[in-house]
């Protein structure tokens, strides 16, 4: 059933994203071409202001707009798919199907993660394409190689470990951010009126609570505090690792709590209008 849910979830969301991603591709190509025509040698651009070119300016500002639009739309779709599909009239269909509530939530979550990652990658690839030709690929790969070996020499470990831990933190952070939206919406629907307003309130409330919990944690366990870590004998990489990983663990706990609360509310306290 989860597979089928995902299929419809991707269908329902893909329809909104498709035009925007097409626009991004087209604009990337146009901007790239215009860039190439206007300033074949990009290094010169900052020095010579005379290269002002209207089509390029328009294309670049459109490009900027579409990237902002992509981020905003991703956020809106994440909120809207959860709220509209589950907690408005469509909820009458979704919650009476023979599917467990946690699967409904999971299908929304996985789709949301997918689009967030797609959004990030698409923008990164697009910018990379625009930048192509302005640097030497060979030099870049040599630079990266050098960085790795220096890191290895200095700290006796592979740079990949830190990068891996960083990526882990990012993924966990994305998931907990999405679930925080879900839990806020779920709490909002516990109210009889002004449910959307209540959801915003819940979101702010959770943010405040999390801040308090974090400061309490660093107060109770100074080991996790930046001050303590910096003043200790450890090298900066070890400090960074402890910091990254403890934030990751904290996020994982948040994920579990948010998921559990959302599921509990939607299962036991549902009250569709």
């Amino acid at each position, binding site marked *: 059933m989860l597979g089928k849910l995902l299929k419809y979830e991707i269908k*329902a969301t893909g*329809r909104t994203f498709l035009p925007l991603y097409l626009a991004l591709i087209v604009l990337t190509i146009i901007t790239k071409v215009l860039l190439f025509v206007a300033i074949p040698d990009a290094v010169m651009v900052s020095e010579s202001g005379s290269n002002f070119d209207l089509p390029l300016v328009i294309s670049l500002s459109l490009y900027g707009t579409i990237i902002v639009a992509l981020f905003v739309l991703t956020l809106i779709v994440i909120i809207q798919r959860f709220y509209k599909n589950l907690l408005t009239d469509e909820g*009458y*269909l979704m*919650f009476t199907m*023979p599917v*467990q509530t946690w699967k409904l939530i999971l299908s929304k979550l996985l789709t949301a993660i997918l689009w967030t990652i797609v959004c990030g990658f698409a923008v990164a690839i697009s910018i990379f394409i625009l930048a192509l030709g302005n640097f030497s690929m060979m030099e870049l790969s040599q630079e990266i190689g050098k960085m790795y070996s220096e890191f290895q020499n200095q700290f006796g470990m592979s740079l990949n470990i830190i990068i891996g831990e960083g990526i882990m933190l990012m993924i966990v952070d994305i998931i907990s951010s999405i679930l925080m939206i879900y839990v806020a919406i779920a709490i909002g629907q516990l109210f009889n009126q002004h449910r959307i307003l209540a959801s915003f309130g819940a979101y702010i409330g959770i943010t405040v609570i999390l801040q308090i919990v974090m400061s309490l944690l660093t107060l109770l366990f100074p080991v996790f505090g930046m001050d303590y870590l910096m003043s200790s004998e450890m090298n900066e990489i070890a400090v960074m690792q402890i910091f990254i990983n403890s934030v990751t663990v904290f996020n994982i706990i948040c994920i579990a709590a948010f998921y559990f609360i959302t599921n509990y509310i939607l299962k*036991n306290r549902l009250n569709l209008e």
Partner: protein
Amino acid sequence: MAILRAKALTKKFGNLSALSNLDLDIPRGRIIGLLGPNGSGKSTFIKLATGLLVPTSGEITIGGATPGVETKAMVSYLPERTYLNDWMRAEDMMAFFGDFYEDFNRIKADNMLQDLNINPRDRLKTMSKGTKEKVQLILVMSRNAELYLLDEPIAGVDPAARDYILNTIITNYKENASVVISTHLIADIEQVLDDIIFISQGEIKLISTVDEIREKHNKSVDGLFREVFKC
């Protein structure tokens, strides 16, 4: 054995009691009218049976199980609201039901669409409210369920469609399945009902067969209802 059973079923919203201490058995093979004025608790009762609401106390079981995945597969529910995804076509909804309900009969659904002159390629967005309600009814009645819960199925439709709906309910009749129709338009459906449940202010006021009422009171259920509830 009863398809639906409620024991001391109670639902409160804050301090407000929507249903209090309801005891009820709905046997299989019956077509039952759930009658009562607006706000009497009809929808609350149906929502409890579908699992959209959880009882405050007491219990409700369908086929012996409390509402959950297992019972949702047995129950075909028509809510008052239109729950269709606007961006889909009628045929997309058919595929959707086929994917999620094992008992969905696509051929039956296609035939019903044709009977009611609805083009399966039409987008739901372009349909009138009445047509959307028909599509929803087709989806619900095309399932081979054990319990059909129809919340105000004839409120908004034209007389021809109403007759079609009632005919569908009759043709669809199965000995192991029951249909519960909640409505305040009793006169229209009285003939297709076996039993009626009068509900008011969250309590059952009367359970009877239609013919018993006619025999005892010398008037139709509709007439009795108007007298009792003065509406």
